[in-house]
């Protein structure tokens, strides 16, 4: 029997300042400058007093410790969110990424003073290039989506530079939403490619759609159904033949790392999500780390600066001939890069492959077990092995009992496991998208199967119980209508108090 902690926790901006009459911690060296005049003329000074209380240190600690106990991370239990690759975040990597040495490094610091750090970054970059089978990588993109955007910009610029601007980007209908959005942000018209009954990109449709307006294609492989795009070499040929480029969404690399490489498949540009495959923690939403890798002939297009070795020293090359510009300030999320260094070093070549191998075994073991009972279905070639993830459908349960994929997800929470990704990809009805990664022990997968079965049985026996879930979490099911309705919208306490309002 699991039960989440529950605490009554005041909202910080609603704490009555009169009961918390502190004045904050000592600020370093304040006493040394007391004699210096403070120049804030009346007309430039802040007038309103923000509702930010001054609490004691203990109150701050308790506030956030309590909130943390009402949160759920991989450290506490399974988070089988498909597409999100919620793997274990090894603690040793915290030691590399979070320390006072790194904290004080300024991004514009003289390169001579950070050769050690740059060596690590460069080494890691080389390793990632080898893993994806391409030639040069940059850490600049702050996340996967930003990598896609940068990649799309490269594709755009590439065609522009060749004097034949192209405006269409092909994306499978099963793709992640960010692919579409990134392509649009880079100025492309998105052309969707249908998925065949076997769960792969419809090659014929693709060939029919591809034209000299086609700038390229954005694909992930294995795709969001967990299925390897077996026609990938033909797809690559088709796209390259019409002069397009292939972009690889690296979010699903965990299913093939060390087994097959995007570069070998014909991809020209790859992004990696360090917070997926390379175990950087997700932080409740971020920050992650993006990496962009390209074939040799596209290096000039990479966002600047890039890291280059010159005369035994490493330095940042800001020169931007053909480059697409800069997708974020400075050099990327360095802490993720450091974690990646440690992750790869600790696993070694065999360990990296083991990640993919165990991931695949976990997925297919689960499929076999969950399908042993006739509740959930596996659309698109159920006999085909999946790779990093699997998408089940709860359509039958919905039809039979009225219990939806969402209800099932909520009920899962009552067992102390996080729900899978729901309703994605959109080509599967009542989708439950499940990814264990290499991190979940067999015992946990077994337990997850049992819970899924138990919930399905409950749906047939007592659907209202499932629909009334969750009850073991710190709060019951939330009113999303109220949350989103313009009349009751409450995105901040200031907003709730009324515009411009302030005590």
């Amino acid at each position, binding site marked *: 029997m699991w039960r*989440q902690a529950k605490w009554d926790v005041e909202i910080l*901006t609603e704490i009555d300042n009169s009961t918390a009459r*502190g004045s*904050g*911690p000592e*600020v*370093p060296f304040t006493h040394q*400058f007391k004699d210096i005049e403070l120049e804030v003329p009346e007309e430039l000074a*802040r*007038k309103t007093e*923000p509702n930010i209380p001054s*609490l004691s240190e203990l109150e701050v600690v308790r506030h956030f*410790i309590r*909130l943390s106990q009402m*949160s759920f991370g*991989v450290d506490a239990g399974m988070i089988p*969110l498909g597409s999100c690759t919620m793997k274990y975040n090894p603690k040793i990597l915290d030691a590399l990424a979070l320390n006072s040495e*790194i904290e004080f490094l300024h991004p*514009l610091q*003289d390169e001579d*003073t950070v050769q*050690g750090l740059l060596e690590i970054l460069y080494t890691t970059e080389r390793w990632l290039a080898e893993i994806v089978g391409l030639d040069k990588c940059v850490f600049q993109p*702050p*996340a*996967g*989506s930003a990598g896609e955007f940068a990649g799309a910009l490269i594709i755009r610029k590439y065609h522009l530079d060749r004097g034949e601007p192209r405006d269409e980007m092909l994306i499978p209908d099963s793709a*992640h*939403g960010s692919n579409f959005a990134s392509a649009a942000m880079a100025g492309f018209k998105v052309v969707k490619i249908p998925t065949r009954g076997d769960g792969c990109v419809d090659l014929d449709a693709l060939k029919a759609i591809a034209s000299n307006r086609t700038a390229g294609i954005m694909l992930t492989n294995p795709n969001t159904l967990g299925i390897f795009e077996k026609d990938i070499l033909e797809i690559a040929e088709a796209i390259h033949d019409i002069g397009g480029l292939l972009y690889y969404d690296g979010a699903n690399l965990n299913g093939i790392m*060390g087994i097959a490489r995007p570069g070998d498949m014909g991809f020209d540009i790859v992004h990696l999500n360090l917070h997926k495959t390379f175990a950087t*923690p*997700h*932080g*409740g*939403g*971020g*920050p992650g780390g993006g990496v962009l890798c390209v074939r040799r002939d596209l290096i000039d297009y990479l966002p600047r600066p890039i890291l280059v070795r010159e005369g035994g020293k490493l330095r940042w090359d800001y020169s931007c001939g053909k480059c697409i510009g*800069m997708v*974020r*300030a400075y*050099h990327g999320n360095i802490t993720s890069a450091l974690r990646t260094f440690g992750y790869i*070093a*600790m696993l*070694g*070549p065999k360990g*990296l*492959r083991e990640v993919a191998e*165990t991931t695949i075994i*976990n997925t297919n073991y689960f499929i*076999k077990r969950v399908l042993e009972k006739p509740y959930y279905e596996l659309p698109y070639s159920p006999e085909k*092995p999946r790779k990093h993830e699997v998408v089940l459908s709860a359509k039958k349960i919905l039809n039979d009992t009225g219990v939806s994929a969402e209800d099932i*997800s909520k009920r899962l929470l009552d067992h102390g496991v996080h729900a899978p990704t729901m309703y*994605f990809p959109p080509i599967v009805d009542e989708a439950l998208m499940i990814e264990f990664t290499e991190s979940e022990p067999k015992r946990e997968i077994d337990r997850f199967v049992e819970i899924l079965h138990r919930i399905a049985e409950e749906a047939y026996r007592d659907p209202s119980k499932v629909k009334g879930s*969750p009850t073991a*979490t*710190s*709060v019951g099911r939330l009113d*999303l209508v109220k949350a*989103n309705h313009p009349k009751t919208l409450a*995105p901040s306490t200031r907003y709730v108090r009324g515009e*411009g309002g302030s005590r």
Partner: protein
Amino acid sequence: MYHVWIPNSSEELKKDMLRYIGRSFDELIEDIPRELILRRDLEVGFGRPLSEYELIRIYRSYMDKNRKPKIPPFMGGGLCPTYIPQVVRYLASRGEFYTAYTPYQPEINQGILQALFEYQSMMAELYSIDVVNASMYDGSTAVAEAFRLAMRVTRRKAILAPEIMNPFYRRVAETWIEPVGGKIIYYRVDRGGQPDLEDLEDKADRETAAIYLENPTYLGNIVEKPEELKNIAGKTGSLYIVFSEPTSLAIFKPPGEYGADIIVGEGASLGLGLNYGGTTLGILGVRRDQSLIRQLPGKLVGMTTDLKGSERGFTLILQTREQHIRRERATSNITTNAALMAVQAAIYISYLGMSGLRRLAETIARKTRYAIDHIYRRREYMNLAIGARYFYREVPIRFRGDYGTIYRRLVDQGIYPGIRLDPLLKGFSNCGLFCFSDVHSRDDIDLLFESIDKVI
């Protein structure tokens, strides 16, 4: 190969599982074309799995090649060294926070959601604006997204930005808006670091999506009449975007009070550390205006109740703006954001409290003043690069001599002076942008200037 990070990697267990599946591993990957299967080990790492301790020793052997300064760096440009209080570190490292995913299942993640809501609420207080989202990647992308937001809302393409705009932000914003037809027009800034209002009036027109201001400016000075830009924007129906260093708002007038429609910021100074520019927090918010809110990119947390209406709860709201629902018509492609940094900033702010924040800002303002006095006393060979009256945290110094040489000599002595403005901003040759933040003592600042005296 068994690895302690991979529970099921023992050969026996894998065999058991494969037996149950009824296929060999090769059969599980038989849909991968044979020619794609890698028949060799990847050439990565150190050839074998390392133990933690071996990794630490290797890491140290690399990092020991870095050179450490004697005193905290004085490098500015939007990111300055700051001290991260230990509570911030401690609380942000709670596993339930940092190993969580985006709280798509709100019931099991009320803690993170409340923390993000508190971040939003505290930022709203600080900037005096009503809606702040749950984080963007960093200041530069927040600015780029603010520009794109303004373009969508106004259906116009031009942004007016100061010629002394943060040069990194400038490059990022250009990269981001150019593909969708956006362009930035730069307005002049006078010798006192103030926007040239005439030039702005000239340039602002019905094509202007937004007027953008940085206050304090990239060069650290305070803009004295920021409300006048609002007037100009008003006349052309443009939006007014203001970027501010958040700590400055503890003592200086916040953008919301002088008419900003959109506010932007970089939260690194809120207890996040420099991390070689890596661990950043883009702050982005808008006025209480439904069209602005509906076009806001990024995640947003809202307060609600449970279905029974009996208990308060928090959840992600207005998700239809986002890529996973709206796809190519989403307000942005942003997915992973900087949530933990937002939580960390919330912890930092609540630890300092409003009194602490004010004291922090006041001390920084005093240090800035103190540094300026040092400069004045050295009129023969240095001066303020802009003649503004009020500076906060950053100060641009113009040197008589070659700053490149001075810079290098100081670095060699273990004193890291202001960043070189030369390659970054036009018209600022032999200038350095110096930052004076919480970590600098009076002795540190004295030593900086005395060291300059010596190398000059």
